[in-house]
């Protein structure tokens, strides 16, 4: 009865045909999202691993930030990511600093138990090169053409990237070298640029600063997981000082993170839920936080080595497989928009139905 006019009927049929055609052409994407199987779609996602490790603090009394970054670097290298896939940015040199009583070493534990600097380290950005601009350029890939490969983040849409930031921060910003800041909005926009340019498959963001949770509040790109060492309004505290060196050696959160990572080996099956439990309030004094709502997989199914290591499952097969048909790469993760013209047709239908119900005489007021 509502669709009595032929015009309305035509429009209704038009909408039906439209939706059907759209469905048949883009069925996969729509189906997955509608049926919420995105987890399966991304389960075997990445083929390579990258890490961007940044220490943003300068001066000798910020020794602990360099030690933080180097301990994550050490773990990441030990678990298999090569130097060519790690972009290490240290804003100041602590190892060969003239105040260092043991040159060419950076210790993480007091009594000089563990030298995280090691003998085989390659720092890509050092000293004055660690700026907000360079950091954002590395992330988004918009570097001058003469930049060498070791200073570029050459990730693609199958890369899992680990980003670790440490330094002094506040509510919504992170301080770079005591002279400039990066805000959480800029960081979120940089990740969105990376997403739009398909520069990552999944991204794990860890930040160890005061009020670190404010830095991931503004993220809006998919497939991001974030961890922070403290909530908004809390300070991240440092671990013990070493009396011979004279400064605090590590921050608490990264200290316990390093202890946790030392137990991980390339074949371990520990997942992200264990990482979220690192450094509870009793040990850390601040409350670590995490954010997984943008991440499509369940954190319990994400292995630590998906981000910290560079491991791929290799299956050896003795059978031959013929690759005759080209594999059509399905478009991924496209936001579902209604088909073109659909909205227009829908509104036309609604308007006509309205005027049908309330009387056609109102229609002449419009036309």
């Amino acid at each position, binding site marked *: 009865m509502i669709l009595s006019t032929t015009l309305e009927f035509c429009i209704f049929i038009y909408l039906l045909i439209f939706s059907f055609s759209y469905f048949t052409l883009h069925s996969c994407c729509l189906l997955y999202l509608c049926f919420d199987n995105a987890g399966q779609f991304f389960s075997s996602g990445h083929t390579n691993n990258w890490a961007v490790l940044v220490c943003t603090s300068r001066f000798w009394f910020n020794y602990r930030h360099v030690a933080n970054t180097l301990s994550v670097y050490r773990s990441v290298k030990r678990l298999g990511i090569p130097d060519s896939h790690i972009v290490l940015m240290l804003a100041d040199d602590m190892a060969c600093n003239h105040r260092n009583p043991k040159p060419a070493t950076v210790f993480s534990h007091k009594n000089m138990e563990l030298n995280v600097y090691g003998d085989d380290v390659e720092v890509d950005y050092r*000293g004055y*090169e660690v700026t907000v601009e360079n950091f954002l350029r590395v992330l988004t890939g918009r570097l001058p053409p003469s930049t060498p*490969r*070791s200073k570029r983040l050459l990730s693609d849409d199958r890369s899992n990237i680990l980003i670790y930031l440490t330094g002094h921060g506040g509510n919504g910003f992170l301080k770079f070298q005591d002279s400039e800041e990066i805000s959480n909005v800029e960081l979120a926009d940089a990740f969105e640029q990376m997403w739009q340019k398909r520069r990552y498959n999944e991204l794990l963001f860890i930040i160890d600063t005061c009020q670190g949770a404010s830095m991931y509040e503004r993220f809006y790109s998919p497939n991001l997981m974030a961890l922070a060492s403290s909530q908004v309004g809390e300070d991240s505290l440092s671990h013990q000082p070493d009396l011979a060196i004279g400064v605090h050696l590590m921050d608490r959160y990264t200290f316990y993170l390093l202890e946790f990572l030392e137990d991980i080996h390339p074949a371990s099956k520990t997942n992200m839920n264990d990482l979220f439990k690192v450094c509870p309030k009793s040990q850390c004094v601040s409350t670590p936080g995490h954010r997984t709502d943008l991440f499509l997989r369940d954190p319990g199914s994400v292995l630590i080595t998906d981000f910290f290591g560079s491991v791929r499952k290799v299956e050896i097969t003795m059978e031959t497989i013929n690759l005759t048909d080209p594999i059509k790469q399905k478009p991924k993760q*496209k936001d579902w928009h209604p088909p073109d013209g659909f909205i227009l047709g829908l509104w036309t239908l609604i308007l006509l139905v309205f005027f049908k119900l309330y009387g056609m005489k109102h229609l002449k007021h419009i036309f």
Partner: protein
Amino acid sequence: MAAHRCSNCAALLILCSLSVFIVVDSQETTLNGGHHATTVHNPQTTTGTAEQTAEPAVEERRWEATAVEEATPDDDDDAAASDKQDTSAPETVDPSSVPQPKDDFQEELVIRPLHSGDIYASFQFRTVWETDFMRGNKVSHYRLFPKSLGQVISKFSVRELHISFTQGYWRTMQWGQPFQPSPPGAELWVWFQDSVTDVDGTWKELTNVLSGIFCASLNFIDSTNTVQPSASFKPLGIGNETDHRFLRYATLPREIVCTENLTPWKKLLPCGSKAGLAVLLKSEKLFHSSFHSQAVHIRPVCQDWQCKTTSWELRQTLNVVFDLHNSAQGKREWSLFKMFSRTLTEACPLASSSKIYIDITDNPQGEQFEVSPATPLLSQAVVLGDRRTFSVYDLTQQITFGTVRSLNLLIRWKSSEGDMLRPLLHAERYVAGYGLQTGEIHTLMYNNHPYRSFPVLLLDSVPWYLRLYIHTLTVTSKGKDNKPSYIHYQPSKDRLRPHLLEMLVQLPPNSVTEVTVQFERALLKWTEYTPDPNHGFYVGSSVISSLVPSIVAMDTNSTRERPLFSSFFPCKEESSYFVRVYTEPLLVNLPTPDFSMPYNVICLTCTVVAVGYGSLYNLLTRSFQIEEPSPGLAKRIANIIRKMRGVPPL
């Protein structure tokens, strides 16, 4: 009417759906195209960071001639791009003659005990390769020569490249002359081939590529710290080029040297740090020293006397001076284990010669110090104008390692008399004056020869923010004015070019020559300050190059077999030898603004305005009203009900 309308909209409907089909289809194809654009870069090579793994054992010294498919010059994208797997120009060995090795690797270590109790160790690793990087075809089969440097040479048409990273300052008066001098920080000087059209652009790209290879911030080298010396840096290899348009020189005095620079440097060696002398290079000991310098020198050399064939020579040198009190705990007894926390077990299998030289010139009868294990091999060499005697340990002989299969040289002092031969040329530099407006740079050059005078070339490169007043330049020796016979001065341009001052000064015998020039400090723009401006700003070292008269006749035949340390600088005449002395870098304070000022001003102003104006406003506009105390809960509910009823409240 209705029927017309119906047919019209049916047609319209079909048309719309068709057009939308087409639009949707095109969207899909662009999507696929977009995906293809984001292909992964070829992850095969990692030439950005030199990751050379040690070559396998040396039994495969023969070459396999590869078939030449096409000798087309490749259009290269980037020096750091993946190598093309196609043509390698045939390095075929001439089958009729005895096959000579086309590349050769030698390593040596010279240990020189110093009179102050410190010890000076100098490593040299030399790779000579007879090939031509400048040909049209790309060289693609690398063996001993590191591929990253070979690609740098061919891509940027480099004729000579000298880069050094130094931590510490060489004290000439206490330690004598070094085998390879270097200034504190990073220094890079390059001679380009005369086929390069845009030298500045090539220089910029070269510094960026080198900053990736050596993990140093060499990308800070730009036109504000690059100069073109006209006379001080002549090519050390063969070549008649004297057009200094193709020479670029830059220093970064602030550059830090640490393990991250040593790691890629070690990876350039054929054996890496796994075998040979390079196992001694442990960073924890090397950087805990008074002086540490590592350098890479690339130049073309003659292979024979007539210079019919030329080959490329790569020398990697590492000089380190260990302090008596830091590393030896005050006891005058040095050993390889004490210096490097390692002993030697074998020579590098790829090396044709691997030797250790210990300077025993001051110890002819063994009365000053004793060296163990004893060795029968002795060698004499003329180096730095003096004939020195060395004990030689040949690591390619198994007997050197003895029964324990490891070599730990021990040098024990018995008496501490005797003094050092005073170095003939020595220089110092300092800033005089007070305040943050003006100052004066003084450079002192000492000629310690008793009766000979010789000329020196002084090169000064001062950044633009110290505005030199060249009319105040004075050169005095022994109180009298000493006019230089050659002055080349290029004034600075603000934010574009530094000052360049080159002078040829004759130093009278046994005298001090003082060069003074006044300057004024500029005020930088607030964005040009570094994050720590109160540290100060560095001025690079002055370079003093000279041919110093030698006591002993020098050997001018450059192709004879000589120890590496004596053949670093080419020797053109017998009566003098080449010496380069670097002064200290200067640290000057520029007038620095208070960067916290805007924040403080805003806080103060806002507080004053808020307190002052706010109070006044309140006084003028605040009015007081009487307010009933708020009633209890029951009364409030009753009031609400009364309001709903329209009855006045209680």
